[in-house]
């Protein structure tokens, strides 16, 4: 047993850190640090920088342009990425669609789409959930009717994260309504520019536009855009959901968030002293730090286990449940650290160019405007990607049987 990273791993970490220090644009880093409003441009710029370095797809196999990094190297990369304040890569493109294309896509699909993802030429969003089909995904109703060499798609998808920026969407559609729900589903790639597609914003509880409804009205999709076989989409969907949960714990981001929390608690004052010296608040920080220490080891244990162990659903579900709880707890403490200043809502302060108001400047720190909205927004983490209740169902199922 050796809980230290190997010399090679430490060398790798240094290389990543130096790359980030040299190439991460300061304006992107500062927006991340201050929790400014999401800019699609940041994600694209940064992806192009990564691609130029040859690191466009750290999680992919070398056969498809990945670097063949070990899981531990990928973990180190993500930790350093988060620590430096660089954006994450688009999960819909990299962690969801790409593995499906690699496993089930045609060579033509692989050769066309994968390089475009790496080069930030395409932006993919996800067409899975529908109103009424959330945890019970197989009950989806969007149809695709074959007409010659096209499918004609009708229906509605929802919870489409960042869909307003996407030029492609991958969709689960029903191609056969006569059979058991799971057996009539297909997996389609759809160009968002196709006539008949309407994207409507859904405003979240923090007042921000992050998710969308996507409506399809007689949308014609070439049959070449079918992934794998018709009516086999449920298999691909489950495969995708398995990949969605890799790195679901978000250790790197939570470690960065915890450092930020400590910084905030050192800067905010209570009773004339730094808040972090208040034993009650400090205990709260300590409690979540312990959870995170434990989860980091739990995550690394999963990464270092052989492939068979790693695939165990229990571990992935634990990482999802605890990872989301920790993210939420840290965000809540960041907000609570503000005391009364958790109350103002200044959406304008989330704009990149906003500068603190002279009247409030001294009292209202630059990190303050984003924190309460962030807390509100992160309630989603225990709901999405298989709610924590679903994860516990999975754990119980694998332990107790049905």
């Amino acid at each position, binding site marked *: 047993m050796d809980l230290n990273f190997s010399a090679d791993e430490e060398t790798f970490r240094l290389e990543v850190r130096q790359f980030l220090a040299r190439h991460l644009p300061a304006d992107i880093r500062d927006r991340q640090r201050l929790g400014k409003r999401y800019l699609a441009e940041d994600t694209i710029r940064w992806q192009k920088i990564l691609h130029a370095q040859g690191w466009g797809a750290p999680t992919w196999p070398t056969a498809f342009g990945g670097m063949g990094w070990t899981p531990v190297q990928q973990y180190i990369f993500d930790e350093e990425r988060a620590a430096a304040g660089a954006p994450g890569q688009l999960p819909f493109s990299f962690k969801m669609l790409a593995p499906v294309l690699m496993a089930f896509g045609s060579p033509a699909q692989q050769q066309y789409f994968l390089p475009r993802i790496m080069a930030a030429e395409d932006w993919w969003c996800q067409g899975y959930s529908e109103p009424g089909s959330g945890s019970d995904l197989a009950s989806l109703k969007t149809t695709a009717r074959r007409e010659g060499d096209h499918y004609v798609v009708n229906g509605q998808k929802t919870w489409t994260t960042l869909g307003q920026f996407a030029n492609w969407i991958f969709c689960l559609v029903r191609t056969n309504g006569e059979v058991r729900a799971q057996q009539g589903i297909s997996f389609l790639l759809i160009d968002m520019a196709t006539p008949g597609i309407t994207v409507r914003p859904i405003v*979240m509880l923090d007042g921000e536009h992050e998710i969308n409804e996507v409506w399809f009205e007689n949308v014609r999709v070439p049959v070449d855009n079918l992934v794998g076989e018709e009516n086999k989409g449920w298999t691909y969907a489950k495969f995708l959901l398995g990949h969605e949960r890799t790195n679901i714990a978000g250790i790197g981001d939570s470690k960065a968030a915890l450092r930020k929390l400590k910084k905030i608690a050192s800067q905010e004052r209570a*009773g004339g002293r730094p808040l972090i010296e208040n034993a009650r608040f400090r205990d709260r920080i300590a409690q979540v730090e312990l959870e995170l220490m434990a989860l980091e080891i739990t995550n690394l244990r999963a990464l270092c286990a052989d492939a068979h162990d790693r695939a165990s659903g229990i571990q992935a579900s634990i990482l999802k449940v605890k990872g989301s709880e920790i993210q939420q707890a840290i965000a809540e403490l960041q907000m609570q650290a503000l005391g009364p200043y958790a109350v*103002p809502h200044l959406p304008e302060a989330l704009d990149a160019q906003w500068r603190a108001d002279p009247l*409030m400047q001294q009292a209202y720190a630059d990190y303050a405007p984003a924190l309460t909205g962030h807390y*509100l927004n992160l309630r989603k983490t225990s709901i999405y990607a298989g709610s924590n209740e679903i994860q516990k169902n999975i754990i119980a199922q694998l332990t107790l049987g049905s």
Partner: protein
Amino acid sequence: MDFRYTDEQRALQDTLERFRARDYGFEHRRELIRSALGYSLDAWNQYAELGLLALPIAEAHGGLGGNAIDVAIVMEQIGKGLLLEPYLSTVVLGAGLIAALGSSEQQSSLEAVAAGNSQLALAHGEPGARFDPFHVETRATALNDGWVISGHKCVVLDAPSADRFIVSARTSGSTGDESGISLFLIDPDTAGLSMRAYATQDGRRAADLRLHSARVGSDALLGRVGDAGPALLQALDKAAAALCSEAVGIMSALNQATVDYLDTRKQFGTPIGSFQALRHRIADMLISTEQARSMAILAAYHADDRDAAGRGRMISAAKAYIDQAARFVGQQAVQLHGGMGVVDELVVSHYFKRLTVIAHCFGDQDHHLDRYSRSLSAA
């Protein structure tokens, strides 16, 4: 021992329930939030007609002589309806302080409050004060026949619509002292006073105020010089108690909304309300809410007590308990609504945001737990 409302109290409750249902629908409320004022002047006038604005003001000052239990009834309905009007700021805090400390001339201004023609805001909190009631660094210095005031007041609830501020300032002593704090009635257009207005997370309005050698007359002083501490503390306690009742109103509304959702929403072919894990969650939410309701009753019952130590114990017990319970109920209501819990278009997220704001007003859970806990080893 008697937990029944009087006939008048029941009538008050019924009236407000009807008012909410008839005049304060969710879509109407969304429009109000988007409006410049942020609430409904029509509703405010109805409050006046219904006597809500005169409710806790002593009869001697033209009020109805109601007590904190009456206020609690109003606040619970304000919670259930997510009403946006500045009731707490104007009636509980503003009018309460004028009634407690004001000269007869100042008291006479309460008639305008009762009539719906005057709105007040308490400018008390300061950067770095967190929730310490006596952390006042704003300074007032006597000059000629008046006062010069300088300082920074933060997150002054309902400031943008107020026609008068009650500003706390230190006239003697040091930061943290109970004595040496004075209150001043100040017009918003006083020279030297500047305001940065903003929305709050729950769609209301507030502001930070800066006073740069703002000059006011001697008639601005509310009560005796340096003596406002105890009345201020009681006003803050009353506000905390009122928020407890508002939170309980919200929690019961959230429970109802969640029960309705679980009954309706289907997954895997059955209503999700048939899943035992979710059923037990609902049971836990109901238990928390019933316990919180008991604490809100306790807080309301003791909010009028003059004995600061005993009152403070009860108020802090209630606010600490209710902030915790509200956090649980709010978060779980969102969770059980799934994706529908985190969008703006359903009322559930608005209830949740209001509970989140309540937890950061007039002392958060840690503040009140600390105050209560200290009283244990002192006892």
